[in-house]
């Protein structure tokens, strides 16, 4: 019998193996590989809606001379360069504070800080909008406390609008990152801290030289995830600025611009696909850099 020969047996297992993964493979090909290739092809076409023609590198040339794209790119970079480090540090500090065994109401604080990231995005955007309105709660509080003379134009000034987006992002995602650190902190051997304490290392030193190095893989992971998330930033900006990325394009992001190019403006699918590849390239390069910076030097 053919199936009993060694070569045949190998083929028998091969065929079986492929058969098992075939459904998954087929689904991935149809819903992942094909769209990726198709959008790459699409990025070489331009035109109005369905009236598309081959444009070669026309879309890439258009990128360079498109002030809105450049604004979106700059904003996106500003958002992750400023927001990701603030949030990661905040999450680290909160995690190590909440990891303190002597702290009371730990469960309450942990839940309270984690809660924003499970709250509905639209609900929180609407809430932020009313809180940060010119005569909203935040401005009233700031004026009452004497911290500012006149209300801050959170949503109508280009600078403050960026600040507001960063605040909103930080509020929502800090707790999410903190949970990762809390979990990782449980895995650090208590005896390391004990040894350090006996050697007289102050608490900030223990944090800096024990906690952070021990958390390095998790920090790397959260940084990459946060960076990717911020580069793809869409929901917060869309909801807070009514889909415009205003004032004066100061909060428009690459994803929001892709959305506008596809659904708000004259549909320009090719150009939108080109910009989506800009995001792909950015994410790939940044992830590589972060892996490289955090590699083991041993």
């Amino acid at each position, binding site marked *: 019998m053919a199936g009993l020969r060694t070569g045949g047996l190998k083929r028998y297992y091969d065929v079986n193996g492929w058969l098992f993964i075939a459904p998954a493979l087929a689904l991935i090909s149809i819903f992942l590989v094909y769209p990726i290739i198709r959008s790459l092809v699409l990025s070489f076409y*331009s035109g*109005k*809606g*369905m*009236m598309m023609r081959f444009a070669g590198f026309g879309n890439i040339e*258009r990128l360079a*001379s*498109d*002030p*809105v794209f450049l604004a979106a790119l700059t904003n996106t970079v500003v958002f992750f360069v400023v927001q990701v480090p603030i949030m990661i540090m905040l999450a680290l500090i909160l995690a190590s504070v909440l990891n303190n065994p002597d702290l009371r109401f730990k469960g309450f604080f942990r839940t309270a800080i984690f809660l924003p990231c499970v709250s509905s995005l639209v609900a929180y955007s609407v809430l932020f*909008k009313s809180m940060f*309105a*010119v005569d909203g709660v935040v401005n009233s509080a700031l004026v009452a406390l004497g911290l500012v003379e006149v209300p801050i*134009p959170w*949503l*109508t*000034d*280009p600078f403050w609008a960026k600040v507001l987006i960063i605040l909103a992002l930080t509020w929502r995602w800090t707790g999410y990152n903190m949970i990762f650190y809390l979990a990782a902190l449980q895995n650090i051997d208590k005896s390391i801290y004990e040894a350090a304490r006996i050697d007289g290392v102050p608490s900030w030193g223990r944090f800096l030289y024990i906690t952070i190095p021990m958390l390095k893989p998790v920090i790397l992971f959260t940084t990459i995830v946060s960076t990717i998330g911020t580069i793809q930033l869409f929901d917060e900006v869309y909801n807070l*600025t*009514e*889909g*415009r990325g*205003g*004032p*004066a*394009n100061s909060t428009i992001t690459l994803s929001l611009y892709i959305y*506008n190019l*596809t*659904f*708000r*403006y*004259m*549909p*320009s*699918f090719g*150009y939108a696909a080109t910009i989506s590849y800009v995001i792909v390239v950015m994410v790939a390069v940044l992830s590589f850099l972060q892996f490289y910076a955090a590699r083991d030097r041993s």
Partner: protein
Amino acid sequence: MDMSRYLRKFAAAAAAGVSLFAATASWAGEITIWCWDPNFNVAIMKEAGARYTAKHPETTINIVDFAKADVEQKLQTALSSGTSDALPDIVLIEDYGAQKYLQSFPGAFAELSGKVDFSGFAPYKVQLMTLDDKVYGMPFDSGVTGMYFRKDYLEQAGFKPEDMQNITWDRFIEIGKEVEAKTGKKMMGLDVNDAGFIRILMQSGGQWYFDDEGNLNIENNAALKAALETEQKILQAGIHKPAAGWTEWVSTFTSGDVATVITGVWITGTVKAQADQAGKWGVAPIPKLDIEGARHASNLGGSSWYVLESSDVKDEAIDFLNEIYAKDVDFYQKILVDRGAVGSLLAARTGPAYEQADDFFGGEKVWQNFSDWLAQVPSVNYGVFTNEVDTAVTANLADLAKGAPVDEILKKIHSQAEGQMQ
């Protein structure tokens, strides 16, 4: 193989054949309609559907209520993917976007010229849905603009309602300063991130972002320049209450913080919703720009119905729209009274509801006024890139507020818009 499927197909073909021989249209389809705003478009379409099905009981009208952005997104996605199954039979499209859809998805919408008498509608409305001399939509509501004003505030400042009629923008600003000095109220709410006010002024000057050929018309656009200058004067005079976004803007007048509202007639329902302000409001035509050919009439927003070419009940849908929206004058009286909708069918103006005085506005015949202004709205070419140029204008409003020279702002708008129009 599957005989029942062939049988069904055969039966359908036979039924289609029979219906060809039927003398009158006896359809039995379901017309699916997409639109937004349950208090306005959806409610009005329900009224239209009820009127049609009363005469044609075999027809079912199915109205699907989405948010406006969702209607546009779903429509654009379905049209670009080419799957007509996902599409409705009739869809509501805002006028600014009409040409965008007609030009980027040729063949997607059914041509209505020849089936509907378009001479009865406001000309500007028909023009915006015409492509290559073919008309594709059923004109619906108008965004004819007016100036709603608080008679009580103006009286305190020493102005009578007559003083608000047919004024210029400079006079408007003078009055605004008086009003603030005497009552402490601002003259108007202004959404500082929105170009809607600029569009009202520009169209009242008879121009748009584009010329008749669809070319960008920014740097030599006298109406746009005058519009920007006017907004700058208002911003610098500080007679406005700044608002960020629609909700805040609406609350400027619902809360009684401002003396005037300048916008499309569709806001009437919202103004009248404040029952405690009854009798305090008056209506006047919008102030006029100081350029040649400018009028006291303009338009903001407004939308129209479109039938999808791929619809399997296309003829039935067209007949429905034609019978109600192009012929039923009584229908327009009903939606005016119930919803404050000013249709663009000119014959509707002669109906009784337009003659009625409105107690909320102190017994003025406001509807007659709006329909008079409707006939005066300058016809302009909305083109296909209104959203793009609008973004460019909005992006420069912050500089405008800071007092940058208008010519410079026009240049910036031009260069950003140019980059977008490809």
